[in-house]
């Protein structure tokens, strides 16, 4: 359509683009602030007025991964000269890295990060594989009381975590699953399963039945048709569902706070617990936060065409 645009419309469009720019700045400024704090020298993290321009450094990340103590006396020049750059950076801040023999002692952060990875990945694999099978079942076969069953499945997702956590805590305590990886994996699988069923059902419904029916006529069994025809067709949907499940498990806080305290603790309850111990070093907190948020930021970008669908439990497609 070749609409003639009036001068007024063009002006309006220009104003809108400026407004979009302002919105972008407002919404991205908080993220920029935490990300930039992760590269600031400690003294510049808490200044009045706030420091915007500075020489970025990696010291906060070195500190994030190591155990350190305050230096009481100046470091021996020879030791300082022999130290690698990352150790020098810590010396420069008046601290020294604790060591066992020659290797530096690690802070709890990498441990919590790995816990988050193990728990998020395992629960995602479980929730997506079970969800895919169930979605196929609902999509292709007649199920008695299908609408009620699907409502039941969705309603488990809507339960407030603290409500479920009270009895789960007591049950886990009875069977020794508190503060274990398996305990959290089960909880996150249950939490993501309903989502995975709903989203995958939408994707399954879009795959034409005729594909499998042709395969069945060709002599495939139903199982062969499912694995060789349906699953490859559903690959994109499965990947999108998996990323959503991963992000949910990765971000989860309430269950992790209640069910874990050390061994299986994930990053979300751990990172905030570092604040408030007297002299909080915000550069280190920011470094931990940035590393933790990075995977989600990358996934959001990869998922961009599926976000609408995922956020509406598969109800709205585009």
């Amino acid at each position: 359509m070749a609409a003639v645009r009036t001068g007024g419309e063009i002006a309006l469009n220009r104003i809108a683009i400026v407004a979009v720019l302002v919105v972008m700045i407002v919404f991205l400024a908080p993220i920029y602030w935490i990300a930039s704090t992760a590269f600031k020298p400690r003294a510049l993290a808490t200044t009045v007025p706030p420091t915007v321009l500075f020489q970025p450094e990696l010291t906060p990340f070195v500190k994030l991964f190591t155990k350190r103590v305050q230096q009481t006396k100046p470091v021996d020049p020879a030791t300082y000269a022999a130290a690698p750059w990352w150790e020098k950076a810590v010396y420069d801040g008046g601290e020294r890295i604790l060591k066992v023999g020659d290797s530096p002692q690690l802070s709890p952060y990498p441990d919590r990060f790995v816990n988050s990875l193990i728990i998020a990945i395992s629960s995602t694999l479980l929730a997506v594989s079970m969800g895919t099978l169930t979605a196929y079942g609902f999509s292709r076969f007649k199920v008695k009381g299908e609408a009620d069953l699907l409502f039941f499945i969705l309603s488990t997702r809507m339960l407030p975590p603290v409500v479920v956590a009270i009895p789960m805590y007591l049950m886990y305590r009875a069977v020794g699953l508190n503060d274990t990886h398996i305990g959290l994996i089960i909880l996150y699988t249950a939490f993501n399963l309903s989502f995975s069923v709903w989203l995958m059902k939408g994707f399954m419904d879009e795959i034409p039945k005729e594909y499998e029916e042709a395969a069945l006529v060709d002599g495939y069994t139903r199982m062969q048709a499912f694995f060789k025809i349906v699953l490859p067709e559903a690959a994109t949907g499965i990947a999108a569902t998996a990323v959503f499940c991963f992000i949910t498990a990765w971000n989860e806080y309430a269950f992790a706070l209640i069910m874990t305290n050390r061994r299986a603790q994930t990053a979300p309850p751990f990172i905030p617990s570092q604040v408030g111990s007297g002299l909080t070093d915000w550069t280190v907190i920011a470094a931990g936060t940035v590393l933790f948020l990075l995977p989600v930021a990358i996934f959001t970008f990869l998922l961009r065409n599926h976000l609408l669908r995922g956020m509406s439990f598969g109800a709205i497609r585009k």
Partner: protein
Amino acid sequence: MVVSVLNTLDPQSRAAARGWSDLTIRNIFIIPTVLFLIVFNIFPLIYSLGYSFTDFAANRNVPWSFVGLQNYRDLLADQRIWTNFVITAKYVIVSVGGQMIIGFGIALLLNRDFPFKGVVTTLLLLPMMLSAAVVGLFWQLLYSPSWGPINYILGLRNFGLLSDADTALYAVAITDIWMWSPFVMLLSLAGLSAVPKHLYEAAAIDRASSWYTFTRITLPLVAPILMIALIFRTMEAFKTFDLAYVLSVQPTTELIAIKLYRLAFQQWDTGRSSALAYIVLIMVLAITNIYVKYLNKVKER
């Protein structure tokens, strides 16, 4: 369509004769999921329903007794619990209201062609994908009364938005609005792009004012999808725990989920907290029911 499904369910069918029957496959695909959810979601709830009628305390090794409806009676008569509900209602109204207005507003802005539209939209969606607990943590830094950039920009000097009893709840709501306006924006954009172009063209030919076009064409057509955003966000805001818990320790920000957490895991009043959990649960299920009805409505369009 139904006929073909029924045919394949016939145990004598050709496909069924080779390998597992469709009936078996359907059952082994669906039953484990349903069982899993019953064992890890429904069974615990039945368990805690039992506890809600007792004076059980999980941290003490003393015998507990059955108290009937006492916990429910006490809770509903407790002025402080009502205060928590009022705080929660205020929080839901402010934060969801803000998200609806800002989210829809941004969607109206973005609903046109401009360079890098895809990148801009994706970047704006980032906040809602982040962990609420970690977002709460870094907003503490932004809100810091002594050196936070927000106080500096607003010229608030040493006024702690998060530590003042009157402003703390609004400060938490603003963070929530920052996180979730993009969600409303995302749904609104989908709604806006589905409005048929010819309606606008017809309105332009009739020289309708832009206000008329907006209220008579745009709004009614986007309304169902806005309703979904509204119900979903209301339900989520009602359940809010992590963001408010990490951001603020003020009693004026003690949402019902935080009260529940403290009652259960700090005061260890297991019986009473189970009863409160049930009161909250019934409210959430009521909203869920409305939500699903709307989802199905929109799906059918």
